[in-house]
């Protein structure tokens, strides 16, 4: 600790006055609180408590956000902790140790630390600023005897030379000549005293940023289909926004690993379009403090609309996320001339029992009015077999294939490459034709030959990239006895309802976040780095000198880690003092 030159030589009357004042201060409750919060030991206690509690919060598992607030889920979660904490689980829960950072007392502790740091800054700033702007240029003689760094010699140093030495070392020098003595005050990097304050301000800013994040942060995951819109806030909010996914892109590596996602978004602020932008995982689209990050991609969507032909009104339009999988045989059929007539997964939506065996069956129409039916035994032992049967006689194609096999039949070359998982889903709210019961009910949707979402078909705009092997095919089971098969843009009308497969659509998972503590964290980080750098690396020095014709006395202040006594001797030596070079120990 540095001795304060201003405290040198107080009178006993002044000391009694200060003591009495302090007593009065402590009696006054407000001043007592002020004294408490400006007390360094109290601040250290607060910081130690914060550190200890935070450590507990890190070491003890914390209850997930999704569990909090639901008594049943909370109890289930606590039951899972019994294996680790045993009989302590319940008392730990009662003490709030599983939700440390949500506890009121933790918030109060943070607030107390902020107040303490703030009080420190407020209480110290005037003194420090006065010390910078109006430094004490003279100190009592006694200070030269007790200063932490000092040099005294029974010889007179050349004042001008000493001034020169000081200025060469970037000191500002003030000189006073008085009654046979010359007084010097030299100050270097006086603004560096603010480094400590800056560090304290950084602590305040960090805690404030945590409070801002706690109170103000917002995070909402949205799962959007292309062309669809979702609100940022669940129901009603004075600042409601909507986000529309205009287009989603994804690229995949040959092994199926995603390489890149991108989502083109349209943002509406209370119903008015305010921004169009692209969002990626690392580069969010930002509007009004909200960041729209792309966090997920799903390529297997099918947009289906149903129109009541009697009124012309749409009665159903949804983009279905086909998140399930149906194993389906992947085949390739080529004609005599080598042209590819069919390539892709053939959906087998129908169950057919011939009497001898049960089959899953499907149909495919080839160019040139040829139709093939595909049959797969619906039992485990023969499920790798595929029967191809072309209705008719004569040169009709007939074959039974195993996975990986190619045969020629009926002028066609038919390859069965193996089973492929086809995206599928059952939707329970599809308008059904009167012949299928009417009202709304369930239908199975399977999407084969997908254009998006796999390494094979790459990614991007459908019209640009397209499917590698032809258009996607949507197979709907449940509208009529036979499955309904539609290509993009195709429609079929059943009992006055027009079912239209509009397109294969992609989905994007968009995470909407707002965290206004971001900028505070940056400010705090900057302040603490600068504050610490100033405190530890800026060589702040303060020197007083009294030089008479027979004696030289130097006294100085510096950060505690500096060997300022040695610097004083060096400067005295440079100013002409007769000090041996080898003397380098501290006094």
């Amino acid at each position, binding site marked *: 600790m540095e001795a304060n030159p201003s405290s040198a030589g107080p009178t006993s009357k002044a000391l009694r006055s200060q003591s009495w004042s302090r007593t009065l201060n402590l009696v006054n409750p407000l001043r007592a609180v002020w004294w408490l919060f400006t007390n360094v030991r109290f601040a250290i206690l607060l910081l130690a408590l914060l550190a200890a509690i935070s450590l507990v919060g890190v070491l003890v598992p914390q209850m997930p956000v999704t569990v909090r607030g639901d008594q049943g889920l909370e109890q289930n979660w606590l039951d899972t902790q019994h294996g680790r904490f045993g009989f302590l689980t319940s008392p730990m829960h009662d003490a709030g140790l599983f939700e440390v950072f949500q506890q009121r007392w933790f918030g109060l502790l943070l607030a107390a630390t902020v107040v303490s740091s703030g009080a420190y800054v407020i209480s110290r700033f005037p003194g420090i600023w006065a010390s910078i702007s109006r430094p004490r240029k003279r100190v009592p003689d006694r200070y030269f005897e007790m200063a932490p760094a000092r040099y005294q010699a029974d010889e007179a140093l050349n004042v001008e030379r000493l001034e020169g030495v000081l200025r060469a070392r970037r000191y500002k020098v003030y000189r006073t000549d008085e009654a046979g003595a010359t007084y010097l005050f030299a100050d270097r990097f006086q603004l560096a005293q603010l480094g400590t304050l800056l560090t304290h301000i950084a602590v305040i800013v960090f805690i404030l940023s945590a409070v801002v994040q706690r109170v103000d942060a917002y995070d909402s995951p949205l799962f959007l289909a292309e062309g669809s819109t979702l*609100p940022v806030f669940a129901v009603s909010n004075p600042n409601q926004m909507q986000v529309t996914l205009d287009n989603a892109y994804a690229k995949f590596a040959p092994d199926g690993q995603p390489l890149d996602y991108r989502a083109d978004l349209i943002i509406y602020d209370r119903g008015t379009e305010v921004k169009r932008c692209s969002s990626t995982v690392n580069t969010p689209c930002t509007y009004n403090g909200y960041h729209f990050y792309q966090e997920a991609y799903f390529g297997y969507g099918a947009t289906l609309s149903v129109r009541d032909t009697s009124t012309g009104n*749409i009665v159903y339009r949804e983009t279905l996320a086909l998140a399930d999988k149906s194993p389906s045989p992947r085949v390739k059929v080529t004609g005599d001339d080598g042209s590819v007539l069919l390539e892709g997964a053939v959906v087998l939506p129908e169950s057919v029992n011939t009497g001898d065996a049960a089959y899953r069956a499907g149909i495919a129409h080839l160019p040139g009015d040829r139709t093939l039916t595909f049959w797969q035994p619906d039992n485990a032992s023969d499920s790798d077999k595929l029967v191809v049967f072309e209705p008719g006689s004569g040169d009709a194609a007939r074959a039974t294939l195993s996975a990986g096999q190619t045969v020629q039949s009926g002028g066609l070359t038919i390859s069965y490459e193996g089973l492929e998982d086809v995206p599928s889903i059952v939707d329970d709210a599809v308008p059904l034709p009167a012949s299928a019961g009417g009202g709304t009910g369930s239908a199975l949707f399977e999407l084969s030959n997908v254009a998006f979402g796999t390494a094979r078909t790459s990614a991007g705009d459908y019209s640009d990239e397209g499917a590698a092997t032809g258009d996607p095919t949507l197979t709907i089971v449940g509208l009529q006895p036979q499955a309904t098969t539609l290509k993009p843009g195709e429609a079929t009308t059943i009992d006055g309802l027009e079912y239209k497969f509009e397109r294969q659509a992609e989905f994007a998972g968009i995470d909407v976040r707002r965290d206004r503590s971001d900028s505070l964290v940056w400010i705090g980080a900057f302040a603490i780095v600068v504050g610490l750098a100033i405190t530890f690396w800026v060589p702040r020095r303060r020197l007083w000198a009294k030089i008479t014709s027979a004696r030289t006395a130097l006294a100085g202040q510096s950060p505690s880690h500096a060997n300022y006594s040695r610097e004083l001797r060096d400067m005295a030596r440079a100013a002409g003092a007769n000090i041996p070079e080898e003397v380098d120990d501290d006094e």
Partner: protein
Amino acid sequence: MSDTANTGDGIATRGSRMNARSFIRRVVYPVAVIVAIAGVIWWIENRNNDSVAPSGSEYGARQIDPKLVPDGLEVGTEEGQVAPDFELESLDGGESWLTDFRGHPVVLNFWATWCQPCRQEMPQLVNAYDRYKADGLVVIGLNLQEGKDLITPFATDYGIGYPVLIDRDGDTSDEYHLLGLPTTYFIDANGVIQSVYRGPLQDKQQDTNVQGAIGETDLQQGIDKIMAVPAASGASGGS
């Protein structure tokens, strides 16, 4: 500290000045900063407010004319209470109050284009309106905070012929304590809420539930209830 060194007359005066200065520094400045920050936040929250009626007041909930509250009833959002009034802009560019439709049974449906269950029930509402509008039934689609860019094509596709009002800032939804979409209020000709349906109105299901197959839909039950209540004499549009 200087304000404690009040041992002499002159110093005491100086100490008082220092106390005042200290008060400004320690109380007035921080309060001023907090007020300034709160002001900025308020400005951010309330700027660009274009939800304003031609009268100059913001669209939203309105105090209902006491003459339109039947004796012994209270204004509220529960069954048996008088539905709170509101003034909102409509999709066709005009504006409407709920009490404009006093004297007619009203199906008040809160919805949004992004709400899948709302889309699911929409054809039922369209059909019901087409079927009963000649009998005086009014269906109001109260859209939650979307813009006309999104609503208009949706309304066209789904053939929505009934009035669509837009609750841009959510004030009316808050007044009705909306918990989720869709929510439908069945309000009789006297403005009294006969039933509230939270969630999608179920259409007839294609299943093996005989009661479900032969029974009335939720919407039909609600409509039957409000159509059965005659308008009291003098019941007519307010505002």
